[in-house]
């Protein structure tokens, strides 16, 4: 249901853009207003979300340790999986963000004849890393449309990406990898029963959207061959805040731009925010040094405790009979008794909020 719904929504979005441009002629809406609005929502939304996370406290150092701790000097510490300082944490986060270290650990379990066996399972990792990196490169390649002269690193990326020298315009590998990887991720949601069972509409929607974005991009470049000069003119108009709508750009371009705009606008409100959240994850970005360096809880408050004196009052006689030393002699006067039951300094504020 979630899948069908998301699919229909993406089709509708495509139709809206197509009708809007081809039938109603709202090129200026789809070519300027929508992208501006989307980028604005994206920036404000992402900043808002990240600030909201960033401002929420981290009361306890809850690192998930993935290897040997730092203890005795002759025991080899797993510096990246169980970091004890900033360098280790930076290394761990870099591995996590650039190479998806944790996902690389993935395994698959199987129950056969009452026995569990575990095997390697790297396809999810491979698809995920192929998807994210190719998406990034595709995104960076688009800079050529928004900058004159074209930055040299963009040209370099293009040369690497198109090294196969196939076709005209020449084929960029990342576009194909992106589409393949995202298709794998989609099919996985359909065919792995557990994953299908947990999937929500909000899991299918971005996948369908990205499939559509990649497809329209590929169609536009290799098949419909949109007039690239006009496209650049439009893009340059956008970044220079001097928007123009050159005539003669095919509808497919506007569909592509509209879908990308939807993705941008949807991003801050969705799980896609994992892109920002991963940096802040307290199980990953804290050092496991909480026995060496005290971690402070900003909202710590005093709690009600049961003090030693209260304990001794209850068990004094039994303790004396068992030969366990006590603080106060047994022949205690009523006044002393009263004094003892009063909160002492040691009790550290016995009344706390619940």
């Amino acid at each position, binding site marked *: 249901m979630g899948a069908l719904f998301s699919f229909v929504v993406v089709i509708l979005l495509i139709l809206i853009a197509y009708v809007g441009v081809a039938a109603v002629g709202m090129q200026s809406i789809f070519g300027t207003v929508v992208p501006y609005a989307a980028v604005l929502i994206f920036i404000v939304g992402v900043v808002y979300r990240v600030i909201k996370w960033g401002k929420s406290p981290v009361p306890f150092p809850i690192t998930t340790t993935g290897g040997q*701790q730092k203890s005795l000097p002759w*025991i080899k510490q*797993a510096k990246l999986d169980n970091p004890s300082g900033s360098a280790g944490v930076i290394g761990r986060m870099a591995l996590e963000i650039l190479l998806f270290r944790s996902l690389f650990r993935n395994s698959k379990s199987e129950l056969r004849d009452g026995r569990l066996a575990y095997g390697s399972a790297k396809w999810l990792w491979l698809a995920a890393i192929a998807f994210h990196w190719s998406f990034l490169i595709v995104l960076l390649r688009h800079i050529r449309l928004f900058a004159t002269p074209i930055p040299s690193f963009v040209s370099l990326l293009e040369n690497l990406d198109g090294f196969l020298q196939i076709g005209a315009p020449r084929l960029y590998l990342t576009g194909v990898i992106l589409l393949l990887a995202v298709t794998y991720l989609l099919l996985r949601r359909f065919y792995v029963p557990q994953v299908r069972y947990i999937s929500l*509409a*909000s899991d299918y929607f971005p996948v369908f959207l990205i499939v559509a974005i990649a497809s329209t991009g590929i169609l536009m470049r290799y098949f419909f061959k949109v007039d690239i000069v006009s496209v650049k003119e439009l893009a340059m108009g956008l970044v220079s805040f001097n928007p123009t709508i050159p005539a003669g750009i095919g509808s497919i371009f506007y569909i592509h731009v509209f879908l990308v705009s939807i993705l941008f606008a949807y991003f801050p409100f969705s799980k896609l925010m994992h892109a920002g959240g991963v940096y802040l994850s307290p199980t990953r970005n804290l050092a496991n040094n909480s026995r*060496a360096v*005290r971690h402070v809880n900003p909202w710590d408050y005093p709690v009600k405790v*049961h*003090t030693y004196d209260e304990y001794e009052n209850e*068990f004094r006689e039994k303790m004396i009979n068992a030969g366990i030393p006590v603080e106060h002699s047994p022949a205690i006067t009523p006044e002393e008794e009263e004094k003892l039951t009063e909160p002492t300094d040691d009790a550290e504020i016995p009344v706390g909020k619940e």
Partner: protein
Amino acid sequence: MAKLPKPEQLSKVEYKLPGKRWMNTPVEFKEGMYCNGTRPDYLETVDFPNPRKWAPSDEDWKLPENWKEIVLNGMKERLEKYRSFRLFMDICVRCGACADKCQFYLGTGDPKNMPVLRAELMRSVYRRYFTASGKMLGKLAGGRELTLDVLKEWWYYFYQCSECRRCSVFCPYGIDQAEITMIGREILNLLGLNTDWIAGPVANCYMKGNHLGLEPHTIKSNFEFMVDDIEEITGIKVEPSFNRKGAEILFVAPSGDMFGDPGTFTCMGYMMLFHELGLDYTWSTFASEGGNFGSFTSMEMGKRLNYKIYAEAKRLGVKWIIGGECGHMWRVVNQYMDTWNGPADFLEVPVSPITGTRFENAKSTKMVHIAEFTADLIKHGKLKLDPSRNDHLKVTFHDSCNTSRGMGILDEPRYIIKNVCNHFYEMPEDTIREKTFCCGSGSGLNAAENMELRMRGGFPRANAVKYVQQTHGVNMLANICAIDRAALPTLMNYWVPGVDVAGLHELVGNALVMKGEKERTQDLRLEDLPEKEGAENV
């Protein structure tokens, strides 16, 4: 009590998924899979809300009228207090990498035991009440009304999670179901929805200093039995002291080690080691618990129980603290104690009086794990060891969840085992160290009435033990956790008969050659040591 099915039946786990979507599948309370509800007096002892008699199978849970408001306010408060909670509610992409990493899913096949879905039980409510899209689109955005059924589902599944953090190792964003379970339980406790097995130890520990509710004189007499046994085995009378002011070191162990096999054998090992070293240390009857069932209840309750350790260290005027073998105790010591009840500036940075080693890694908490302490002794050649006294044992080591994934004490115990035992075999790589499986009874699940859950949750662990039993003849499962020592014997009896369970320092005690001891003919269990092969051949 529900009858426990036979292992052959239980090992046929069905991973089939219901046809209906999970949000439309109401929770079904299956006997043997959950613990009893809390007795009111336990809650009264620690001033927790809504004490009353209730049973989870009751239709009416006798909740306050405004329970929904309490839950939503509880969520709101915690979303503001814990970045972890808010983030883990927001960023899951439901990739499913965690699904088959959970021993409770592997053992039950119940999809709501997949960590991702256990989290979604709460996330769906979060989306409905705390996100714009959920408020507007409801179900379409994955939102779900908070109903009594949903609340019951939380209770059922948050008490089928042992807070082991295995999922969090595999999650690409480090989402930790333990954190969600802990916060979920904290919220349930706002309505008096704890289990008897957790609330009882909490109340005991609060009033008497330990989970078992041992009173000071009982602790002492239990020790006398152990002291006698040590004397029978070694001819040496060890003299533990209690609540002794001016000792250099306070030793805090889980109370499980003071009462009941095989924990007591571990406790004997501690005492023999300390005696042999001539260590100036004391036990405390007030801080007689290293473990912390409070941490299975709420952060505040965890802090209230943990308070005793530093308070007692201060009162007795010790210099530093050694902690015994216990799993969740060490998650608390490593990640919570200093924050809760520190700074312990009245203590000194721990320095081993035997080797002079300064424990820099514990310079703020001032608390050293006994495995760190002992490994250091062995490395410096300060212990005379005869590993052949453990030759009747073929040992494997079970890493406890908390010490592995909330601390990382992995190689210290292994180093010790290799020095005190001649036969040590690792279980398969996917089941040890940071990937270790839970005993199935952690986080307060080690009751009797939920035995089927425990055997199911412990299935992956038992399965790996069975593997080394069959390939190497392993007959001893060593560990550094009191809940393991309490729970694993039952698990082994059920799945892998013939494998016993021992704490690390029981093995140390067996191998430790003490000054002036008599020739040992028995191990710490008072079982005869097999004659040594070498002697036979002479």
